[in-house]
């Protein structure tokens, strides 16, 4: 479905992503992990058209995407959520989602926009009444709104950016189940970028690990968790993630110590 080859992004003299290739198959959930600054968000930004790649190609359903404007990529069927929710606060919850539904799909139709907004809000469990304001939502609610906006654009592929930062553990599990439900019920393919590995490993079909802009591992969750390079990257840098690696290996699910 998505074929990425030799993707490179340079910012001046700094290479944020150097020659990353990967494939995503129809209907799978691919986890994308790596320490801070490893190039995960840069890859997402290139996939969604925020900036063009310096080199390499992104082919989606056989069509080249690199160089297309962001709104064209959305219209091709790639939705995106942000790590930090960015709703329009002066619009209601429904208006936010319906706006995405109206412009996100190729045929601009009011009835379709409102129908897809209602479906998306129902899917994530937010109220579908027209007037509910954004200001009443907490961190978990804002994440749901972000997801509903992306769903309303009618994506075939969903780029979910670190969806769980700032949530407590029950909310994390809920959100992870939500992504699985979106794949199972709507048939939407998902790439999921996440810091918190434990919960990600439980849901994804495959994992890709980045470090310093390079792909260092790719495979099934339990394979990747045992990969010595992955362990090395995570051991030295992030105790939080190390616990998650341990958890994914089948050890006791040690929660992050707070």
């Amino acid at each position, binding site marked *: 479905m998505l074929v990425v080859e030799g993707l490179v992004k340079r910012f001046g003299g700094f290479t944020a992503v150097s020659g990353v290739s990967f494939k995503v198959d129809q209907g799978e959930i691919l986890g994308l992990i790596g320490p801070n600054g490893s190039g995960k968000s840069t890859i997402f930004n290139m996939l969604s058209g925020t900036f063009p790649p310096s080199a390499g190609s992104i082919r989606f359903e056989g069509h080249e995407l690199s160089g297309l404007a*962001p709104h064209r990529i*959305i219209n091709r069927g790639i939705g995106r959520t942000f790590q930090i929710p960015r709703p*329009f606060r*002066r619009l209601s919850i429904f208006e936010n989602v319906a*706006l*995405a539904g109206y412009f996100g799909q190729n045929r601009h139709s*009011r009835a379709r926009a409102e129908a897809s907004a209602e479906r998306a809000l129902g899917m994530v469990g937010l109220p579908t009444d027209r007037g509910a304001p954004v200001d009443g939502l907490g961190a978990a609610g804002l994440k749901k709104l972000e997801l509903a906006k992306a769903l309303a*654009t009618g994506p075939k592929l969903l780029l979910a950016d670190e969806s769980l930062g700032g949530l407590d553990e029950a909310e994390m599990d809920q959100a992870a189940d939500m992504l699985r439900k979106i794949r199972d019920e709507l048939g939407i393919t998902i790439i999921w970028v996440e810091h918190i590995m434990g919960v990600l490993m439980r849901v994804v079909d495959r994992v890709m690990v980045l470090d310093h802009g390079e792909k260092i591992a790719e495979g099934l969750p339990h394979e990747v968790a045992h990969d010595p390079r992955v362990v090395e990257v995570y051991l030295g840098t992030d105790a939080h993630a190390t616990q998650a690696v341990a958890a994914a290996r089948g050890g006791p699910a040690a929660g992050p110590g707070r």
Partner: protein
Amino acid sequence: MESFLEIFDIYLLEAVLNGILLGGVLALLALGLNLIFGVIDVTWICYAELIMIGMYGMYYLFSVYHLPYWVAAPLSILLVAALGALLHFLVIEPLLSSPPINQLLATGGVLFFLQSFATVAFGIEFRNVGIKLPILAVGEMNFSYARLLAFGAALVGMVAVYVFMRKTYVGTAIRAIAQDRQIMALMGVDARRIYLITSAIGGALAGLAACLLVLMYDVHPFIGLSIGPITFLICVLGGLGNFVGGFVASFLFAEIISLGGLFSDLEWGYVLAFGFFILMMFVRPAGLLARRA
């Protein structure tokens, strides 16, 4: 003594009502400018010159080519709407990420360009479309039909824009885009198209204003100088980009001008209004309806 009070009250009422009529037209002028500033974050210094071009459009279509008013008016509105979109496409879009001062200077340049263009193309003579509308007498009060018509049309224009902004998704996008341009794109919205539509609407409002002003004033290449400053003062008084603030400020300004004119000459009305503006800039520098920091 009693009869004096009676007459005075009639004049006062007449002045208040005329102030409301003037306020409607000023509010229409302010709305276009506020729309552009609120959505695109750019100030069209040459806004009043677009109105001037629209007034010439009316003059030529109506007086020279003898089209009926109700045919000439929509054509003039279309002309200025196209001009607004062209202004955005040629001047604003290349400067969108430039510092505000560059955008001001560029649209300021367009102001002089349009003034000079009009001088060369149309000459410096004062032109009048020659529509003389009667005076409406209610009791002892007099109202000009031109002003009533202008007020009504301005109101219709403003309501139309309001409904468009509230009831359509393009309007919703226009209201929201100022907050986050990047997110708009990721919801599938082509920001450039939204800006172009907004500029065309801003131009159309200037065109509508032109169709109405031409009933009351002669057109000449420098008429923008008598429309522009007061429009900018109203927008700043209401808080640039604040639609409701601009609306309130328009009627406030119009009443000060109208009532000031009642007690003395019309010019003193303007002096009072501008004095009020200077005072308010000290009291509420961010505009009438600005939230306190």
